[in-house]
């Protein structure tokens, strides 16, 4: 429970009318997009401007109350799960597009603006904001900054971090600073860069300056079916090997296609073992030239059907099928878990074989949808909670993420570590690595009040030991020893 002094201080900071304390309304904030982790906060504040955010953080700091920033709550790693007896600072009311500057091709926005609204505001100038997470209609740019969100087109265009020039940040002590600047230049160590993807643990971004890109002259999209996931994977390698950097390369397996077709009828072939969506964009002549190359590579690897989007409506339909795939598995399974892991692209076929085996062993189906160009997998573990399969499904899902690390990849490509994977971090990083990350966190937040319990493993979350001892890869290589 928060004491009365804290409640008063927060009401003073944001205005009493912008404080939620009614238990029923507080329940709205108990989880994010990963609904398995729930915690009702003690209080929610909805500041109306950056100064009020800073005042709220200062109040929390002074009274040593933990706080969690929250955007649209679409995150998939439990990064915005409230802290017991803590405060949620919602950025939903900071949703102003401050400036679209078509000359220097930049946008200045508040954190509660949705990703897609930035592109909508830039479109009249022939500009757009490149990162496009699947949830872009609802997710906020503040959340994208916290998670360093990617999307289907990040193979060519990069992630949020590559598109943020500057951040006005409220630090965990309530002071306000600017990280980054008007260009890619910064003086001294790149704090802007380390803040990006810090999952709300280093402060709250209250104003964000973004790069906008000129919309490409042409976009060409094809949908191709293959007799096996392996053949589709070879096509991806073939495209990259030919020196082509596609705007997007997405793969779906039979189960994912079945679900997507049931949900949105996007024109995918049922029963094909694998389908690839390949999109090229850029100057028209070059796009056409490379598109022919891609078609030839597809045919060389036994493509069974090749469909080229003839206009933007058809292209949108192909993407609708792909982007609907997550939610669509609800049509073929009562419950599911979305996983997010990364492997080096050359190990895609191997990891998919292993996932198939693990699924069979666990007696659970796994649908695969992924960004094949950068090896970012999104296995969907299907299960039935009523049949008591939940625990097995969670176990399988976690094993898949850890398998990605074993194969030289990462625990997360875009959803973040949050609450969900904090206890898996020792699989990817050594104890010392994590300790040094903790020091970085302390430099920003010495009192550990800003989104505590996320990203790094804690004894409370993971048991007394932060995870099983595992030799550091450098130890295994004989490069270092345990000192």
């Amino acid at each position: 429970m928060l004491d009365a002094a804290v409640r008063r201080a927060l009401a003073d900071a944001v205005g009493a009318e912008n404080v939620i304390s009614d238990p029923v309304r507080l329940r709205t904030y108990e989880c994010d997009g990963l609904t398995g982790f729930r915690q009702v906060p003690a209080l929610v504040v909805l500041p109306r401007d950056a100064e009020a955010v800073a005042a709220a953080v200062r109040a929390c700091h002074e009274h040593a109350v933990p706080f969690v920033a929250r955007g649209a709550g679409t995150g998939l790693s439990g990064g915005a799960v409230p802290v017991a007896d803590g405060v949620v600072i919602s950025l939903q009311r900071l949703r102003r597009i401050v400036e679209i500057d078509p000359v220097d091709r930049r946008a200045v926005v508040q954190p509660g603006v949705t990703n897609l609204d930035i592109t909508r505001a830039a479109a009249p100038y022939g500009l757009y904001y490149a990162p496009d997470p699947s949830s872009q209609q609802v997710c906020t740019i503040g959340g994208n900054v916290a998670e360093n969100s990617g999307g289907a087109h990040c193979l060519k265009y990069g992630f949020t971090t590559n598109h943020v020039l500057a951040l006005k940040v409220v630090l965990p002590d309530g002071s306000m600073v600017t990280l980054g600047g008007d260009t890619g230049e910064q003086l001294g160590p790149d704090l802007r860069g380390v803040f990006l993807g810090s999952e709300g643990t280093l402060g709250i971004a209250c104003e964000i300056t973004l790069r906008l890109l000129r919309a490409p002259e042409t976009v060409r999209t094809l949908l191709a079916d293959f007799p096996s996931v392996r053949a589709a994977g070879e096509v991806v390698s073939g495209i990259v090997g030919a020196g082509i950097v596609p705007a997007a390369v997405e793969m779906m397996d039979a189960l994912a296609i079945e679900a997507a077709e049931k949900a949105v009828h996007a024109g995918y072939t049922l029963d094909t073992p694998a389908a690839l969506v390949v999109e090229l964009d850029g100057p028209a002549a070059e796009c056409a030239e490379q598109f022919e190359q891609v078609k030839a590579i597809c045919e060389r690897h036994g493509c069974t059907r090749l469909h080229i989007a003839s206009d933007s409506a058809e292209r949108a339909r192909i993407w609708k099928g792909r982007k609907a795939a997550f939610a669509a598995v609800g049509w073929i399974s009562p419950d599911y878990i979305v996983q997010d892991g990364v492997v080096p692209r050359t190990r895609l076929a191997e990891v998919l074989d292993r996932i198939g085996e693990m699924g069979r062993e666990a007696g659970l189906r796994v649908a695969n949808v992924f960004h094949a160009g950068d090896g970012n997998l999104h296995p969907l573990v299907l299960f039935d909670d009523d049949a008591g399969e939940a625990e097995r499904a969670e176990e399988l899902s976690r094993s898949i993420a850890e398998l990605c690390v074993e194969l030289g990849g990462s625990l997360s490509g875009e959803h973040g570590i949050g609450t969900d994977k904090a206890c898996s971090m020792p699989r990817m990083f050594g104890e010392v690595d994590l300790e040094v990350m903790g020091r970085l966190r302390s430099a920003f937040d010495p009192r550990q009040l800003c989104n505590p319990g996320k990203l790094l493993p804690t004894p409370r979350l993971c048991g007394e030991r932060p995870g099983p001892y595992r030799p550091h890869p450098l130890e295994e290589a004989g490069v270092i020893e345990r000192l």
Partner: protein
Amino acid sequence: MTTSKTSGRETTGPVLQPADLREAHEALAGSVGQVHVRGGGTADGWADALRPAPVTVDTTRLTGILAYNPADMTVAVRAGTPLADLQRELAGNRQRVAFDAARVRRGATVGGLIATADSGPLALAYGSLRDLVIGATLVLADGTIARTGGHVIKNVAGYDLAKVTHGSYGALGLLAEVVLRLHPVPAASVTVRLPCSLAAAAERAAELASTSLEPVAVEWYGSGVTEGHLLVRLEGTAEGTEARARAVAELLGPGAFTVRGDEADAAWREHADLVDQTGNGAEAAVLRIGCRPSRLPGVLARIDPPGTGVTAGLLTGIATVTVPAEPAGVAVAHTAVTAAGGTSVLRHHPATAELPAWGQAPSAVAVLRALKKELDPDTRLAPGRFGAWFTGNTGGEGAR
């Protein structure tokens, strides 16, 4: 580990030359006192001057590729590897690190280029090294070895410590190993050149930015701001690049012409010579500037460089300007940049001159100070590089 007695700089003790991560750890864990970290020595005179230190860790033996799988388009290297050497290896597979800072040709190392936050004309299309580094292994001042990132381009697990090494001038840790994202070498590259003033070039560049012609570099260079050359580089497939080059030449107007191969290389070399003036003229100081592209011509006009060299990235907002090495003039230049909301830092300057190295310190300098304390509590590394940032007195510009 190789140890030698002198480094040719103001050190009073040993020069340690680790050849691998273990030796890099030993060099820092086993030494006492303040430390200079030195790579290729191509940016010795950048930022604030180092104060003398008893130990130098020299990374010129910390070289070599650790892992390179061309199909994954990533490479892991020891940080002392000269980038030019790495590029030669990668070229065999028609791949590259899409990065072209001028001093690469003088043997700048991967680690040094990251630590100094350097970049070249290609930054317009590919960003700087912070956009291309996907993993790193650092050795902290006490020898602690910390790994960050990984070997895959898409990865959001943990804090990205590599980012804080970018622009750190070695003050937070020694970069021992780096994993880089690679790009394909384009099939064709054509440059369009137009002799013109900076102001005229800026207008053309703004027009170019409103087309879909996708130049990968747009730079102006000249001696002052009135006479010089605009260079626009296009890369891509053979036919498509030629077609776009024609369109760019048409947009730039009468006097524009295309250059390729050796001729293009020579034009870009002239540009690089002005950026990289370290060996040229003991009396001059070189300032690196970043500001909104639309404000850049105005800022450069206010600095009014005396005809010794200007380069301007007209769409990146990054410029290099050579000014006389006297404190008042350099301070005026910093002020002009700060007034336009930009950043400025001294690069080369004569060893004898006492000049304000940094423009206005960042507003988050207190965080930097806290970070320094966490990672290098005894302030061993790179003493002096950031003037008074880490000691608390950052009032005014270029505290020194």
